[in-house]
């Protein structure tokens, strides 16, 4: 308790005088089925009924050696839990595009959207779990050992940033506006945002690698507010960039560390949560989560990197559908934590 008080005190010094302390609890309520472990949970999202969905790297990712090429398969799972954390079902068990889980979001119609970093696909599942729409195409084969951060040559994809198609390279996250338009942070290999209509028709693409306004360095997370503005967690540049619905740069939010997961609440008075996620090789800095107004004013800040509950390890996915509740997928702690804000 003393330690917590010290922590909060320490955090308070970093904040403007108006920022309030936040009292919060952490819990790990999700119960995977017998003989199943959460693994490296990367994406988490809730639907309108309060069910919790997790897209995680677990199981055995495998490579099959062909005559001249190697083929990658498996390695990630999508689970649904009820509002009490009880396991409901596994979705997409035999899906071709599940290789390395990255992002997970649920839209207003309770469709489930899984973003896979390695297959470079954005996969939409209907609420019943059936594949509804696919963006991108999984590379046919992989190089062994894998190509080091050089992008994918194997699918014959054109040189990265800004390409006018749905061929992604390491996509990280997906978001929707009220009309159902789709925005993909194509993010970990590319450095662009791609916009599609609700039917998956390519509309436009913006951004390139760099530090200027409208440029990105690992755009990791994306959200759209009720007015259609697009918020991009420009992780490597330590800022959230805000664009209008057509990708015109409006402003940047800074002073929040390196945002890796962001979430905008619903309802009449939305707020923005941003996680200054620590990388897996550093638990001694960062890890804090900032609560902001949509115009970028810091309202509160809480937490730090660590392996205990109420501490955070490499938050990659964040859900804030329910007021006062955050679901966090912690890729460096291999768990999903439910945070209740008081």
């Amino acid at each position: 308790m003393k330690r917590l008080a010290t922590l909060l005190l320490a955090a308070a010094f970093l904040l403007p005088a108006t920022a309030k302390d936040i009292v919060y609890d952490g819990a790990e309520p999700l119960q995977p089925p017998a003989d199943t472990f959460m693994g490296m949970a990367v994406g988490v999202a809730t639907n309108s009924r309060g069910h919790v969905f997790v897209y995680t790297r677990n199981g055995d990712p495998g490579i099959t050696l062909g005559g001249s090429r190697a083929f990658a398969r498996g390695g990630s799972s999508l689970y649904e839990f009820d509002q009490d954390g009880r396991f409901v079902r596994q979705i997409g068990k035999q899906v071709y595009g599940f290789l390395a889980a990255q992002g997970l979001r649920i839209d207003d119609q309770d469709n489930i959207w899984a973003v896979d970093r390695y297959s470079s696909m954005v996969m939409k599942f209907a609420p019943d779990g059936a594949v509804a729409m696919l963006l991108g195409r999984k590379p046919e084969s992989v190089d062994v050992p894998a190509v080091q951060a050089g992008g994918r040559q194997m699918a014959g994809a054109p040189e990265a940033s800004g390409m006018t198609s749905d061929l992604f390279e390491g996509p990280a996250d997906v978001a929707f506006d009220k009309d159902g338009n789709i925005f993909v942070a194509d993010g970990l290999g590319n450095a662009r945002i791609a916009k599609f209509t609700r039917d998956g028709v390519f509309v436009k693409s913006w951004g390139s690698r760099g530090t200027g306004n409208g440029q990105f360095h690992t755009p990791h997370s994306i959200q759209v507010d009720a007015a259609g503005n697009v918020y991009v967690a420009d992780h490597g540049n330590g800022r959230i960039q805000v664009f209008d619905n057509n990708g015109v740069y409006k402003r940047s939010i800074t002073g929040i560390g390196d945002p890796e997961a962001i979430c905008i609440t619903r309802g009449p008075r939305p707020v923005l949560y941003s996680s200054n996620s620590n990388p897996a090789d550093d638990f001694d800095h960062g890890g804090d989560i900032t609560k902001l107004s949509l115009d970028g004013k810091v309202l509160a800040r809480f937490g730090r990197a660590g392996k205990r509950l109420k501490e955070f390890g490499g938050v990659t996915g964040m859900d804030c559908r329910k007021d006062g509740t955050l679901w966090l997928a912690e890729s460096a702690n291999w768990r999903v934590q439910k945070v209740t804000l008081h």
Partner: protein
Amino acid sequence: MKTMLAASAAVALLLGTAPALPQAAATAAATAPDLPYKAVPGFFKTPAGDAMGELQGVATNSKGHVFAFFRGPRTRLWEFDQNGNFVKEIGKHYYGFLFAHSVRVDRDDNIWTVDEGTNVVTKFDPTGTRVLMIIGHRPSAALGPEATAKGPNPPDGKYTLCRPTDVAWDPQGDIFISDGYCNNRVVKYSPDGRFLAQSGGSKPGKGENEYNLPHGLQVDHQGNVYVADRTNNRYVVLDNNLKWKTAYTNVGTAWSACISEGAHQYLFATNSNPNGNPQGSWNRTGQIYKMELDGTVLGKFGHAGKLAPGFQVVHMMDCRDPDQLIVGEIESWRMQKFVLSGGGAANGNEGSK
């Protein structure tokens, strides 16, 4: 380099032995008495139609259940009861299992695994159904090739491991990890998994506070750390803050260390015969030494051999009860139980007989 040589010379002087050579003879072999021991053949009953592979890790919990961590078609963790009957498999398709190296059980019966394929140390609850903590990071296949002993390795990070080998705890619950095949260090973490200190680094060496393949470690009740510094053929003793105390260089190849429980603790040290059975190697290696914690050799037992009860590259031992040893071997794909007598005063441990 000069200081390193000077340091090892100083150690050699201190201990009155010559510097260790590759596959150094266990100089204690000539004088150490043979301890009477008896194998318990067929003690472990594997499920029909299934098989164990290379036995990298063996451990017992407080109830006498035995855990076997091995490399089969997948890396697997099996639990047996105190009578050697199969209980269950733990961690089937767990993301932290790729290439087994060690399993240990802490004083609260939590099960810890060390996997040198995923570079992750996992703390399971006593039932093996829940992951309580991980240390380390499994790189995604999407991020490129994983570090190997031969490839370029990332520098030693506080929270990332490079083919880690073993885990142990002091009485306060602090965590010690030997790391490993591509780093060459011992790392200390708080019970919450926060980095506290390390000895050694990414580069191998043979001086003080240097290691060359730290392959296993144990901690005694006083918090001293015993490191099996394999390629240097020595057991290194560190204090609780990882400050160098001494090294034992007279018991051979130093693959694995085990410290028994009870009021009087003993150190068991393997002089494992090397992989591949080079000609003549069985004459120099293969036995296990029983020692006092201060390095006094009490005796030896066992020998290299393909057939039970011979040892075929001992990788790890459990010695919770110093009179009942469980030994895991690599090249024979087996786990054997032995009853040992003699060597040291009657230990008076509860439940030791």
